[in-house]
């Protein structure tokens, strides 16, 4: 019988400071995953926490995560050095529906440290650029320092990914977006207030709820829909998500 709670060892090959509170961790070996899927990172004795992968899903040699120091596991990770060994489980969850979004215009909306899964998706789009229409990335951060991955965004911009950034709320970003609303979809990942973005950006653009994909944040622990910590309504974020159609979860009481 397979023990799916058993983590596997990975090595930190690079740590880079992205902001005063966020570090990028490059881990080896690489893993194949779908953008939007998450991994549980940590070490026995220190705990585990869920993170969305941010590197290109085509990258065979390593996988990257951007981690904000917020709790015990993330503080532990921030204290590691390059060369240290940590543990990981995954990939878990469903990821973004790549077949569905192919060929469409896309509006990606995120804020603060919600960028990782979106970054992995953009890397996927970069590799298959001709299969997508206009792609917009709207990214908001509280302060200029907290805007992550600026160097990568510069690279994405060269491949006609239109990037609109703002310090403050992404909801201020609507002008200048040109999409065919009949054949466009939206992807969101970010802190709770981001759902305002639906009201203020995505619906006004004419994208229907069924074509809005949201990546949710919860306290995933077991990763297989048993422990109940990540339940929302009748869904489990670790198993049925973390990516949902907006109309699957917008009426949930929690």
């Amino acid at each position: 019988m397979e023990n799916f709670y058993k983590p596997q060892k990975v090595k930190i090959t690079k740590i880079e400071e992205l902001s005063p509170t966020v570090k990028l961790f490059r881990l080896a070996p690489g893993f194949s995953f779908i953008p939007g899927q998450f991994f549980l990172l940590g070490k026995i004795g220190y705990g585990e926490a869920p993170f969305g992968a941010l590197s290109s899903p085509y990258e065979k040699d390593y996988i990257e995560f951007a981690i904000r120091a917020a709790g015990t596991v993330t503080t532990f990770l921030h204290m590691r050095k390059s060369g240290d060994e940590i543990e990981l489980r995954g990939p878990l969850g469903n990821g973004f529906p790549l077949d569905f979004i192919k060929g469409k215009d896309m509006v990606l909306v995120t804020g603060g440290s919600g960028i990782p899964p979106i970054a992995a998706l953009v890397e996927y789009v970069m590799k298959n650029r001709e299969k997508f229409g206009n792609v917009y990335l709207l990214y908001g951060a509280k302060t200029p320092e907290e805007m992550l991955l600026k160097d990568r965004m510069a690279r994405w911009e060269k491949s006609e990914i239109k990037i609109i950034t703002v310090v403050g709320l992404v909801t201020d970003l609507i002008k200048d977006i040109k999409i065919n609303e009949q054949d466009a979809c939206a992807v969101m990942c970010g802190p709770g207030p981001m759902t305002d973005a639906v009201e203020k950006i995505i619906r006004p653009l004419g994208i229907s709820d069924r074509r809005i994909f949201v990546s949710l944040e919860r306290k995933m622990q077991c990763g297989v829909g048993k422990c109940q910590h990540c339940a929302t309504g009748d869904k489990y974020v670790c198993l049925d998500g973390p990516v949902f159609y907006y109309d699957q979860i917008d009426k949930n009481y929690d």
Partner: protein
Amino acid sequence: MLVIKEEKINDFLEKLREKFEVLDITKDELPFKQYFLPANEQMFPVPKPPKKFVIFGLSEIDLEALIQLDEIMSKPKEDFYYWRRRKQTLVIGLEKDMKKLAKEYGEFLEEGNDTETKIFNWQQSMRQLLLDSELLADAVEWSHGHKIWDELAEKCLGCGICAYVCPLCYCFSLEDKVGLDDKCSRCRKWDACTLPNFSKIAGGHDFRPTIKERYYNWFYHKFVRAYREYGKSQCVGCERCKNQCPAKIDIQEVLKTILDDYGKFLQTPKS
């Protein structure tokens, strides 16, 4: 079928004890789940596999709960720690009350003494309610916002005992430890969704900050989420939560109130 007379049960158990470790659970306060999903168990380093053992004395209702728990722990993947214990176990059911069995199977019986009948009636009518788990799911989902949840939030102490004594509550937390010898371990222990911080994430946001939301979620899981996931309510009417609740909350009364009002709602003409 093997029928053992009551006075011969001990001899039967003695015989079993010669070959296996036998746990007589007839006097347990906690449900049988503690033997397959212990209140606190070490996951890593992986402990030695458990020995073969016999669990004696599950009631008919508990056997039903065990079948449900087996299903829960098999999907989408078999839970390693549950099944390594479960597969080493022989479970023997015991129904002491032949009257109850007979009544359950529809035979006519004289009423017993009053207290006995009262207990029995509670279970009987609870199990009647549980027959229509689709209706329960609809009603409990509809009841969000019903005033009963405000009333229950006043009553409920949020102690989590209902989840601990429920044979079908299986939520848990993973907890890591470091010993004085620097050896690290990962354990899993029972949790309860009515306890604070159950759905709090790093950064401090709590998705169910009040007892009202958490208590509703307990019901929602048992009767709505469980129904959508497995096609039946995760309640067998064992009565443990009602008996152990320090605030004397009766799950059946709650359901009946909701069902009554849901019935009225359905009959009200919508303009």
